[in-house]
Every structure is written in structure tokens, then in C-alpha cells.
């Protein structure tokens, strides 16, 4: 029989900072970390807005300065989040290195592309065309030899293993939030199946730089207006965020034996491949509905048991409506909906683990997560869909959806532990 999976530690590096009580407070007050983009070329995106993570909050959490030189920004944030999560759980000394595993999701390679621009500029021939010969003769000479370490999407996981002496099972998936949520599922399964006794699961991403804006603009996903407004009538795309979130998972019985702090139980997960939607955003509500149903079925829970849903909606005109339709078709009525994306931007591959972290924190502390209440909701969404009021009791089961980009659609169910 599969073992129960406990969340025993949380570490987040987010635009709202690193301490969960502080993050919660900002969220409850409706503060926003979304600001005008700060990169040097911001005039290319005159309305560009994003949510940056204040460096001073997390950079020093990774004491190995030599290793930090190899890291890109998202890997650095992941390493900091892992440090926080391990310290929070106290699990580091509880298990041997071979019985600890890491399961991470990472995003599109991009943050270091800016480093390539000078290499390119040194590689133009006399006519102004790019020249491989010039690249070989001049361009590569000016290239950071450590660039490969910053481009490889598996390195965040590897740095965590090096910093914290983790030698066990591991998986790293790329490039979208759904893939990052699959990594959380994989870590939970490793605990449930006994392949690991302690699993670090999570994701990291950073698209608050020029290339992030460029890529999402070219994909037609970036909000031209600069704001992320899930389910609002005038929503027009996502606002990039950045960050990392890492959770420590353990076998529930072991966690109880060692009197670990237990935030919640990961009690279910569902995944589907939406192979028939040609675009990156969700287009088939039936698929999303099935995913949520599967997550609940794992725990033999019914839709009525769900006390809230951390939505995936990132402000996409079609994708948000698709998720709303899926929720409306499964839940009658819909439970309170939650999202931090309006305030912290879309943290992309870090978004599912960040949402899961805040959900687990809410369950442990018997909190009502702030409910999504669009000011001017999409008129295609039925009236009464958004329940601004809280239920009489804090939630016992929460769902975390990762639907917004790519084919992998995932929903995670977590339950309060009494």
C-alpha cells in the first residue's frame, strides 16, 4: 500500500519575499509587486511590467560564493528556496543522503541569452551579417566559459544536490508550469512508493528580463497593457514574475515519528495531456475538468469537499475562460478561487510550487486564503461564480491547478492534517 505524503518544509523566494507570514500579509492586503520592467532596454516594451524578487531577501542564503558564480538567477533562487525548506523541515539530518531525492521543474532557457548579445556583436562580418568564422575567431573569445552551466536547465537541481549533499533519486522536467507540477507529482510518488524517504520538490523560473519579454511577446502571451488580471473582462495576457519554491515531502508516518512540522498531506494528483489544443494556452475545459476529478479521486474526495482552488489562470483571454468553464462544470457551486498571479506576476515553472506552498501554509494555520474577486469579470463567466465570501470554516482540502501553458495539465490536491 502506498505511503501517505506529508509536506514538512517550505522555502519560497518570491516577489513578495521569502517569509510565508509576510507573503500572506501582503496578499491579504492586496499589495502588488508588479512594477515597470527594470531592464535597460525597457523602451522596447514601453508598457512592460513584471514582478521582480528583491535580491537582498535571498541571495545570501546560499553561502557557497564559488558555486553561485556558476548559477543563473533562477538556479540561485532555487538553491535559496531549498535552504529555507530544509531548515524549515529539519529533515536534513533525519535521512541518509541516498534516501533523499530532488524533483524539479525549470523554465525556458533564457536569462543568460543577454550574455550572448556581446558575443554576437563580436561575430558580425564586415557586411554586418553574422559570421560563424568571426564567431570562432572573435566572438567565442569574449564568451563566459561558464555560460553552459547557466544554460543547462538541469543545473538548478544539481546545485541543490551539491549544496545540501543529496545523492538519491531525481528528475527534472521542462519547460512549462504543468511540467513543473509533474515534478511535484513525481516526488510525491517517490515518497508514496518508498523510493525516497525525503523529497525536495519544486520549481524555479525567471522571465523578468528582456529575453523573457521578447519570447512571451513573440508567443502572443505577454500582456500588452502590462498587468495580469485573471478572469477580468479586459485581461490581455501574463505579466512575468520570477522566483522559486521548494517543498520538503516525507512519509507521513516517519514525519510524525520525528515530530516534524506537518503542513499538509499531498492526497491526490491528476494529469492529462491536452494533445488537441494547438495553442500553448488551454482550450478544452473537459480535459481540465478530468484532471481535477482525478486529483480528487485519488483521495476519494468529492467536489463538495474542496474548500478552494488555487487557479492557474494567468490573464489569458481564452485560457482563463477555459479554466472557469472546467471549474463551473465540476463544482456546483464553485468554491472560493485563489491566485497570487495578479500580485506576484506569473512565476511560470515556479508557479505551481509557490501556489502549493501558500496553500499548505493556509491549511496548517487554518487560514482563509484571500478569494479572487474580479472587479469587472468576464461576462462569459456565470454570475455568482466568484464567491467573495469565505466559508464558515477554513478549508480542509485545496486544489492547485497548473493548466496555463503547454500540453501537460496537472492538478494537485492537498488536505489538512489533524
Amino acid at each position, binding site marked *: 500500500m502506498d505511503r501517505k505524503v506529508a509536506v514538512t518544509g517550505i522555502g519560497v523566494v518570491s516577489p513578495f519575499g521569502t517569509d510565508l507570514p509576510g507573503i500572506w500579509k501582503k496578499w491579504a492586503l492586496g499589495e502588488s509587486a508588479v512594477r515597470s520592467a527594470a531592464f535597460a532596454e525597457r523602451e522596447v516594451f514601453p508598457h512592460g511590467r513584471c514582478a521582480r524578487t528583491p535580491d537582498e531577501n535571498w541571495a545570501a542564503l546560499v553561502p557557497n560564493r564559488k558555486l553561485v558564480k556558476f548559477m543563473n538567477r533562477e538556479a540561485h533562487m532555487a538553491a535559496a528556496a531549498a535552504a529555507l525548506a530544509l531548515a524549515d523541515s529539519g529533515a536534513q539530518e533525519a535521512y541518509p543522503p541516498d534516501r533523499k531525492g530532488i524533483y524539479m521543474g525549470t523554465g525556458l532557457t533564457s536569462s543568460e541569452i543577454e550574455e550572448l548579445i556581446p558575443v554576437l556583436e563580436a561575430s558580425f562580418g564586415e557586411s554586418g551579417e553574422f559570421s*560563424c568564422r568571426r564567431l*570562432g575567431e572573435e566572438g567565442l573569445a569574449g*564568451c563566459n566559459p561558464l555560460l553552459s552551466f547557466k544554460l543547462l536547465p538541469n543545473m538548478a537541481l544539481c546545485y541543490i544536490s551539491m549544496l545540501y*549533499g543529496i545523492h538519491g533519486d531525481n*528528475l527534472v522536467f521542462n*519547460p*512549462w508550469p504543468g511540467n513543473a507540477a509533474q515534478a511535484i507529482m513525481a516526488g510525491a510518488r517517490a515518497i508514496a512508493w518508498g523510493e525516497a524517504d525525503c523529497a525536495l520538490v519544486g520549481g524555479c523560473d525567471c522571465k523578468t528580463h528582456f529575453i523573457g519579454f521578447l519570447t512571451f511577446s513573440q508567443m502572443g502571451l505577454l500582456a500588452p497593457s502590462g498587468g495580469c488580471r485573471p478572469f477580468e473582462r479586459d485581461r490581455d495576457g501574463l505579466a512575468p514574475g520570477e522566483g522559486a519554491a521548494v517543498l520538503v515531502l516525507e512519509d507521513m508516518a516517519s514525519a510524525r515519528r520525528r515530530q516534524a512540522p506537518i503542513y499538509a498531506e499531498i492526497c491526490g494528483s491528476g*494529469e492529462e495531456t491536452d494533445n488537441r489544443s494547438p495553442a500553448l494556452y488551454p482550450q478544452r475545459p473537459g480535459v481540465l475538468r478530468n484532471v481535477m476529478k482525478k486529483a480528487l479521486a485519488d483521495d476519494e474526495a468529492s467536489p463538495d469537499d474542496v474548500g478552494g482552488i488555487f487557479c492557474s489562470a494567468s490573464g489569458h483571454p481564452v485560457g482563463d475562460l477555459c479554466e472557469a468553464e472546467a471549474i463551473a462544470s465540476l463544482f456546483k457551486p464553485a468554491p472560493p478561487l485563489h491566485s497570487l498571479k495578479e500580485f506576484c506576476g506569473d512565476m511560470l515553472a515556479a508557479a505551481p510550487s509557490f501556489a502549493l506552498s501558500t496553500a499548505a501554509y493556509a491549511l496548517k494555520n487554518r487560514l482563509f486564503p484571500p478569494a479572487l474577486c474580479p472587479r469587472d469579470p468576464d461576462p462569459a463567466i456565470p454570475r455568482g461564480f466568484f464567491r467573495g465570501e469565505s466559508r464558515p470554516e477554513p478549508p480542509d482540502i485545496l486544489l492547485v491547478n497548473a493548466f496555463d501553458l503547454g500540453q501537460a495539465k496537472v492538478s494537485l490536491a492537498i488536505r489538512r492534517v489533524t
Partner: protein
Amino acid sequence: MRRVVVTGCGVVSAIGRGRESFFTALQNGASGIGPISHFDASAFSVRQAAEVKGLELDSLIARYPEAEDITDRKVFLALAAFDDLMADARIPTGLPASSRMGLNLGVSLEILPLERLSRPATGLPISRVEHLRRLKDMGGVLQTPLDTASRILAARHDLCGPSYVNCSACAASAMAIGHSFELIRRGLADIVCCGGYDSMVNPLGIGGFALLGALSTNGENDEPACRPFDARRNGTVIGEGAGLVALEDLGHARKRNAPILAEIAGYGASLDAYKPTDPDPDGRGMLSAMKKALASAGIGPGDIDYINAHGTSTPKNDEIETRAIKDLFGDRAGRIPVSSTKSMIGHLIGAAGAVELIACLAGFLRGFVPPTINYAHPDPFCDLDYVPNQAREWDGEYILTNSFGFGGQNAALVLKRYREEP
């Protein structure tokens, strides 16, 4: 737990495409390494690679018009291998949907098309901001996300089972296969097309690895470039290609009378947790992955009859891998044939583990183990039987294949000769 079998494969490599021609080239000790032709590498310090020749892009685009605008060559390698896999595993139209067939592909990283990045800069001088503004306005999408091949294949072939993109560097495709094995063994999937594809034979790929000092600069002199375990080895050679296998629950395979090529018996993964630049000099991560794979297969070191080594031809890897093999197999290590097919096909990075697993199938299906070619100078620190230069007849039961990734991710898989009864 359920038994997991290999029911087909698709392979695209520098020495051949398709199972039979690939096996024949392996048996002949063919080399796919030669001068780089994909771009002008004349001013690069490294000018040799193992390129796939004759990939008919036009016919692939005719078959997959949705890939027309894709600039990333490796996506086409995946599409070609997948078509071959569907035929080899005799997967009929309709089976993927009815069996909820999954997809689990390993690949290393996105490589930016430098020409595309620079195209707007034609007519310099322009300001950096103007350059970037033109990039924004030129249309298309600069990046090719690592799920591109998966998205195309899942849509085209109605693959609606779980789909994963594993990006564990050089261990990616071995890990994708191991992960798929676990999913099938535990009943979460009945059939998964898994493996990997990659091409780093491009200016940034070759240039980046060369800057790290990981590549051999031989090849144009009298010294072969890729010579795993040889005392004069001085680096690896980048290759390109794709290797995909259909892993299937034995019951599912029998029910549809699928060809059964071999059984996957075990999988182990580990982390070196050492340094970004080097493998753990004590080989603990490698050893741990191999031990776990044997334990997962329910066998001991005495059962392995051939080892397909990671064998990159870098000074450190080959010595440390040799030591790890000796630590695990003790006195028997010297009597087990160990070879590196990278000597023939180069290092396929994200596709390496899968193509090498397919090479192992030759042992069961053709009765030989592939050689390590270019082997001439014994290294006192690499003192195993590396099957030098000539393929060898073989009729063993179990094979171990190793993949050790950049950053310290390690994977090992155990293959077993398929027999009707356990």
C-alpha cells in the same frame, strides 16, 4: 509488479538510421565522426562531430507541415525516429489513443539560432535598443521550447497518456526510459514511447563545450578524436541523433502480438552532489546508480554479462567509471565486456542513453556486443576488457547501460534477454 518489455525502437545516428542498419554499422565498427558540415567551423578549435547525414528535411516537413517554421534541427531528428519507432513496434493508428500511450522524451537544452538572433542587425551600425526592437518586430518565435517535439507528436499521433520532457543533460534519455519503466511497472501506463533526441552540432553547442575543454581537438591529425578508455584520449566528440523505444507492459504487448525485443529489468538513479565541472572522483554517484539498477532488477553483480559504458573519452569520466565498475563487480570486472559506442557515434548528450540502450539490443537480437573503436593505447587506470575495435559474439542474459550527466545526474538501466517465462 508488472514486467516491462521493449517492443520497438527508432534510431537516427551518424552511422545509420533504423535498427538493422544501425546494428550492422555497430558490428562493423563504423565511425560516424568527421568534419563538421552543418556550419562553418573552420575558425573553431573543434572541427569534428558525428553528424547525421541524409536527413530528408523536406520529406519530414511534408509529413509534419506544422514543423515548417522550426529552426531547431533536433526536433526533426525526433520526428524521424518516432516514425521509425511506430513502424518497428507495429503500433497501428488508433492504438495510441485506445491505450493512452505516453511520451517521455529526454533532451538537453534549447540552443538559440544565432543567425536568427543577428538577422535584424544586418546593416550595422544600429543601436543595441534598435537591434532588440527589430528582434521583437521580426515575427516568429526566437526560442524553440523543449516540449516542441512532444507537442507535435502528441497532437499528430493522438498520444493522450502522460507526456514528460526530461532535461537531465547527458542522462536525460536514460532517465526518461527509467522513469517510463517505473510508470509501467507500477501500472500508471501500459505503453510509453521514450528516449531522447539532441543535436549540439551548432555554433553555440560546439563553441560552448569547447570552451569547457570537454571536446577533443584531434581528428584532423593522425590521432582519432573519440577514443574512450584509450591512454591518449583527450575529450569527447559531439554527436547528434535520436533514439526512441516503445516500453510496454508485457501483458499489453502479448495481447496485441507485439514484437518483443528485450525486457527492461531495472533502473537506478543517483546524484554525485560533487562539483559542476567534474564527476565525483570516487565514483560514488556512478556506483550508487548501478547498484540501484541491479537491486531494482533483483539481480546481483554476478549476473551482468555486458556493460555499455558511458565512456565519454574524457580523461576523468573513463577512469572514474572504470573504478566504479571495479568497485561493484570486484574480481569479475575484468571478465565482463565493457564498451563505449560513443567511439562510433559521438556523444549524443540528451539522446546518448537511449541510442546506447538500442545498441545494447544488438546483443539479444544479433548476438554481438559493439566494440570500442579507436582503442590502441592501454591506460593503466582503465584496465578492463573494452571490446577493442572488433565487435564480439555474445549470448548473455543481462546488460547494464550507464549514463552520467553533466552536473552529476546518474542513471543506469538493466536489460534482460526476453524469455516467455520469468
